[in-house]
């Protein structure tokens, strides 16, 4: 092959020189990662503002004139879609996946850097198309993030004309972007690992990102299929999902389609999507915990098996989102069983995190605080998942605030906690500077306690039967007036948590200039990304020679070692050889 990939060459041959080639049309995985990250955080902030507006309406109804029922539904829809797809998926895989994979496996770059760059530009295009829907007649779609037909494309639903088309187009573009990026991630992990980096020596971060990418590559086609078919239903009048119906007194031309078919397709993507977000988070939190507890991760093999097992099982549980769609009880039983089986590998992971902390030399740094916070939020979110996985418990709780509280704890707050842990953990590597520790801790406590102030009461509201997605509750016998006070308190908490994210943004930008220089490996970590010759790593990552790997990624506090960590590229010391010989004699 003549098109020798960037990964084959030492860096000085192709160091980009101009601003445009260095920061805009860059094929460097680190720059692409930061581009992904900044774009994702930007849309994430928009989604955060939307959630604030929703909460204002719920907490203080009849106060804000600009929030009418249509606008409320549009805020709900865009908030959900942006957070799940355009923030979490993009930031965890496009951002951290891009940054960490080549560095952690000891490669110079992704195997196909041009395709990697295209992936970002397609992602940016999908974001632009999505945001454009705010400015078209009728505004963005208000169909809910699940976009269920028939209502998503019928009159009466906000944005049924332009908004839904832009949403479907944006999703299709996003899927193309993700596929190009994802193909790069899996190929790089499988092909570009440096000498000595066997699969089982990879840090769990890479295992999480790798498995999540495989899930994404196989699950996103389901969303693409449903988006294409719904687009045809909307634009060309086909009846894939649209049944015969009368809308606003008018007989429509549709006939015989199946809305439930869309639900199956959507959730065949939608449930693996939960793990596309969760698995990279599982991986990264494992590395943060091990590094800051100065202890090897407990049960490394079991952790890898659990990641792979959860990934495989996630394709067999999708219909637990559809218990109320009128499915055969036998199916309900099947999906409830598979759902509960997933709890086993997930619980193994939680126990292993806790056992990693047990008798560890815990440093309560900011990343560690967020990682420990994650164990709490994830356990709470996971336990309510066991409630909802059972058909009989799910039926009365379906479409109530209990569900909202559950999925926000398990796939909203938890991955966000890990994202903050990861940003604080890898910030010194990415920028060469330390962030402000005090501000970081303030940010943590506001976020951690604040999320409990938001979501714990929501469980209670759900038990009362307060329905989700309602613009206003009106007067209903079974909802006491005190529920409104609770809603107001949730709103105030949400606004405080939202505003406290400004501390984080301030910290990130302030520390870029004023933070203490981080130097090499400030956390004393063992994995390869901290062993680059330059901090932040330069183009090509490794200088002239690629690193060689001699050990796994968790040699912390090894008895007899000089330091409490031994980097992966550290050759075998004399004391290890002696220890090994002792083992051999036994």
């Amino acid at each position: 092959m003549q098109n020798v990939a960037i990964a084959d060459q030492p860096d000085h041959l192709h160091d980009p020189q101009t601003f445009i080639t260095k920061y805009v049309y860059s094929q460097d995985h680190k720059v692409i990662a930061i581009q992904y990250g900044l774009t994702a955080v930007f849309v994430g902030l928009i989604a955060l503002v939307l959630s604030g507006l929703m909460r204002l309406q719920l907490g203080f109804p009849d106060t804000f004139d600009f929030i009418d029922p249509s606008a409320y539904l549009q805020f709900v829809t865009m908030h959900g879609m942006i957070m799940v797809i355009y923030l979490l998926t993009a930031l965890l895989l496009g951002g951290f996946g891009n940054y960490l994979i080549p560095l952690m496996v000891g490669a110079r770059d992704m195997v196909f850097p041009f395709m990697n760059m295209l992936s970002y530009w397609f992602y940016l295009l999908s974001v632009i198309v999505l945001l454009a829907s705010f400015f078209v007649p009728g505004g963005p779609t208000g169909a809910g993030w699940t976009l269920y037909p028939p209502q998503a494309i019928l009159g009466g639903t906000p944005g049924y004309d332009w908004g839904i088309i832009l949403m479907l187009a944006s999703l299709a573009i996003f899927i193309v972007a993700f596929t190009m990026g994802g193909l790069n991630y899996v190929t790089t992990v499988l092909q570009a690992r440096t000498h000595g980096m066997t699969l089982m020596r990879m840090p769990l971060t890479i295992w999480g990102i790798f498995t999540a990418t495989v899930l994404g590559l196989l699950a996103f086609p389901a969303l693409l299929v449903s988006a294409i078919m719904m687009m045809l239903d909307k634009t060309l009048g086909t009846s894939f999902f649209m049944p015969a119906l009368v809308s606003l007194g008018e007989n429509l031309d549709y006939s015989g389609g199946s809305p439930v078919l869309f639900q199956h397709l959507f959730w065949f993507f939608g449930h693996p999507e939960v793990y596309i977000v969760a698995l990279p988070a599982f991986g990264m939190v494992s590395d943060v915990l091990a590094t800051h507890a100065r202890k090897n991760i407990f049960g490394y093999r079991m952790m890898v098996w659990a990641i792979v097992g959860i990934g495989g099982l996630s394709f067999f549980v999708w219909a637990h989102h559809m218990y109320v769609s009128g499915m055969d009880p036998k199916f309900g039983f099947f999906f409830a069983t598979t759902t509960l089986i997933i709890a086993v590998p997930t619980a193994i992971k939680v126990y292993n995190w806790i056992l990693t902390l047990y008798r560890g030399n815990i440093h309560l740094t900011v990343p560690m605080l967020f990682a420990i916070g994650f164990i709490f939020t994830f356990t709470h979110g996971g336990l309510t998942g066991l409630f909802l996985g059972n058909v009989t418990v799910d039926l009365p709780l379906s479409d109530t605030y209990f569900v909202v509280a559950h999925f926000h704890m398990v796939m909203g707050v938890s991955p966000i906690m890990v994202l903050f842990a990861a940003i604080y953990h890898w910030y010194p590597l990415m920028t060469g500077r330390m962030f402000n520790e005090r501000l970081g801790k303030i940010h943590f406590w506001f976020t951690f306690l604040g999320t409990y102030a938001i979501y714990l009461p929501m469980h209670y509201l759900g038990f009362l039967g307060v329905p989700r997605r309602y613009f206003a509750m009106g007067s209903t016998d079974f909802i006491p007036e005190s529920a409104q006070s609770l809603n107001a308190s949730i709103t105030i908490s949400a606004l405080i948590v939202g505003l406290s994210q400004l501390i984080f943004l301030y910290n990130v930008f302030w520390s870029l200039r004023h933070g203490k220089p981080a130097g090499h490996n400030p956390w004393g970590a063992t994995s390869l990304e901290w062993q680059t010759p330059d901090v932040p790593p330069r183009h090509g990552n490794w200088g002239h020679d690629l690193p060689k790997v001699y050990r796994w990624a968790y040699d912390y506090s090894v008895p007899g070692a000089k330091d409490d960590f031994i980097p992966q590229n550290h050759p075998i010391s004399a004391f290890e050889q002696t220890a090994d010989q002792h083992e051999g004699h036994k």
Partner: protein
Amino acid sequence: MNILRTLRDKPWLHPTAAATAAQYPGPDTTAAMRILLRFILAIVGVLFFLFIITFLARSQYPDFEALAGQPWQPFTDPSRLWFNTALLACASLAIQCGLGGTRAGKLNVTVAGISAAVFFTILFLVAQFDLWMHLQSMGFYIAGSPAASYFYLLTAIHGLHLIGGLVVLSNVVFRVWYDNNPQSLTAPLRLCTTYWHFLLGVWLVLFALLTSRPETINALAAMCGF
């Protein structure tokens, strides 16, 4: 199995020397391309699998009428589709000959094979488009019946994948031409050949499905639990 042995590895025991080789040369691009293609085939396979599953599910609703089985249905006599299939099969055969040519170092055979493959592929696409026109003239519009919708949709998606293949193939050929190094064509051309054969296989499945009689479709749907 190899992967199971890998997953049983205990990495915390025995740190070992990385490798005796002096310097890791970087990843093998050809092997990386091969892995890339495998994943692409898997993704395309999943895509068509899901379309087919929805087709079978949709076929069980009362308004569904298969496109074959009755005299007035367009594919009761599928001779036009057989002709199109022959075109795509010729494209597959031609690209295989082209690959044989590069392996044997015969530039003429390579050029003839690739040119013929491109020609037959484009001809197939034109013939499919002509078939669309034919169906429309018979009154089978995309929104007319669910089976017709699926026919237009699946042939369009299949055609788009062929066009994607043509773009990649032309990129490969032009780069080889530009570098003036015909030997370097073998590896990427082999991958393109695999892709062409795969799309021929997908087309055969679609062909069989779309021209099936109602009894066959119902039996398939019953096997899938619909």
